[in-house]
């Protein structure tokens, strides 16, 4: 199901930090239900690019069109409200809070205590957390739902972060090294999750150093080197060697 306008279109994105050019003239399109891998060496500009799309940074040049409309996010909240959710490798969760509190972090529902005083609705948070984990077929024992998420495994925590994005109806999900801190079986689980989300029509951008990951889940691969786009190829035409060659140049 291909709409006329792509869900996300970046055109001529440029960003400087002082005298350093972090990004220069980067552009690409992304459709609903498509998975784009961002590859590149350290300092290639991957993080800067996703931070611009997710509203953390503001691009100095170029424009981001989301759903056909030019987006001027000046903070991550605005991007989230528009349906762009970002999952950072370590920064996603408050370890001292439970699953429900993390799913609703920053957007906690309230009830009225005695019909007067605002009060965080923990019961609703817990129920919603349970529900979203169930729809994603993520298995976390109910007893763990009320414990701080630091008691969960790395894969479960990653799943909670993804679950949060889905609960908030993310249309574009950005993942920064989603499998970096995980053991092999948990990496596989996260890849399965990505496939399931794509099937539901969510567009996904993910950064990875892991070629296996890239080849396993990406539809397309965009390679950055020193802030410039040096290649964009469908997975079917890509080989590991070629991606590495583009990443390091030469």
């Amino acid at each position: 199901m291909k709409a006329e306008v792509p869900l996300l279109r970046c055109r001529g994105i440029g960003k400087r930090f002082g005298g350093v050019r972090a990004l220069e003239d980067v552009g690409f399109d992304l459709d609903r239900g498509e998975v784009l891998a961002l590859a590149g060496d350290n300092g290639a500009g991957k993080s800067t690019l996703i931070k611009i799309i997710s509203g953390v940074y503001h691009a100095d040049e170029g424009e981001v069109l989301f759903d056909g409309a030019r987006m001027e996010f000046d903070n991550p909240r605005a991007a989230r409200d528009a349906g762009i959710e970002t999952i950072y490798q370590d920064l996603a969760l408050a370890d001292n809070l439970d699953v429900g509190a993390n799913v609703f972090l920053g957007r906690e529902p309230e009830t009225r205590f005695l019909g007067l005083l605002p009060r965080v609705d923990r019961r609703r948070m817990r129920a919603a957390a349970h529900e979203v984990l169930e729809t994603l077929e993520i298995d976390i024992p109910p007893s763990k739902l009320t414990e701080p998420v630091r008691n969960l495994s790395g894969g479960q925590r990653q799943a909670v972060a993804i679950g949060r994005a889905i609960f908030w109806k993310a249309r574009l999900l950005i993942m920064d090294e989603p499998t970096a801190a995980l053991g092999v079986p948990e990496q596989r689980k996260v890849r399965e999750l990505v496939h399931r989300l794509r099937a539901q029509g969510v567009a996904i951008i993910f950064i990875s150093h892991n070629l296996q990951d890239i080849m396993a889940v990406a539809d397309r691969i965009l390679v950055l080197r020193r802030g410039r786009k040096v290649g964009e190829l469908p997975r079917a035409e890509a080989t590991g060697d070629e991606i590495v060659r583009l990443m390091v140049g030469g």
Partner: protein
Amino acid sequence: MAQLRTSRALHEQEAARHPVLVFLAAAWPWFFLFLLLVFFETWARLAYGVSFVFNGFNAQSIALFAAAPLLLGLGQTFVIIAGGIDLSVGFVMGLAAVIMARVMQSLAGVDPGLALAAGILVAFLVSLIPGWINGTLVSRLRVPAFIGTLGMYGVARGTGFLAAGGTTVPVNNPWLFEMGNGKLLGVPIPVVITILVVIAMHYVLSQTRFGQHTYAIGGNRAAALRAGINVRRHTLLLYVISAGCAGIAGLLYTARFSAGAAQAGEPLLLDSIAAVVIGGASLFGGSGTIIGTVIGALIIAIIQYGLVFIDVEPFWQFVAVGIVIIVSVLIDQSRERLTGEAKDEG
């Protein structure tokens, strides 16, 4: 079946967490409070043939004793949960006490009720200023909390003494005296006011989004930022709350003694931090409760009052409170170990 956990990770977690130990680590302030009471009760009965606990005068004295460090500790709890610290509270309290006395002194001719209201209002508002500056330093100018509030410790101290003219500022006002020494249903009014503040703070911390965000910032500041929480504004407010609590303590000091003194809260800074830590908060942020801080303040007050009561040299108080602080931090550390992995860097 999506089975996300690996069996190895699961084993590590389960092995590290003995439910009984975890429970003991969480509930130890209550046990300790209980043991203290049993200890002093036994001693009082054996040595003097009187009760320590079931004695209205003792209970009242301990409550009055605990009120000021507890008030400082309430705001401190918010700040510490969010990963900060406020070293200026003692002298902010003194500043508020002096300002209140000064205002009321200069209004000596007007209606005493009016003078009291004006004193309360002005002193409370003035006490928020150092909090606002602390918050701005920490949240906007990124000064480490320890340094920024240490600077304010000096500034508030100097300002307090300057405003007081280097001495205590006496006030003669029957309403003020009533506020500090009167009773409501047999409970001293300063204690009543402290209880009301405790209830309000407990509600804010445990029930509201503001409280939830305070924990989130202390648990993982970056995650809070990414979640769209206005961390700067929130941090600013935390220091204003802390200063406001210190301000209330200052008001009650002036009321109790019918005089304002810049050094009113000088010895209370460490007691306030101790109350928070004994109550189970981590100085690394992310955990702590108002109830815990209340228990912590009571433990300190009971040790201090109880040792005097059983005629131990007063200097032992410092040793005893010091040991309790160290033990509570040790327990906190082992609790981290008991509940699994170490805390992430925020």
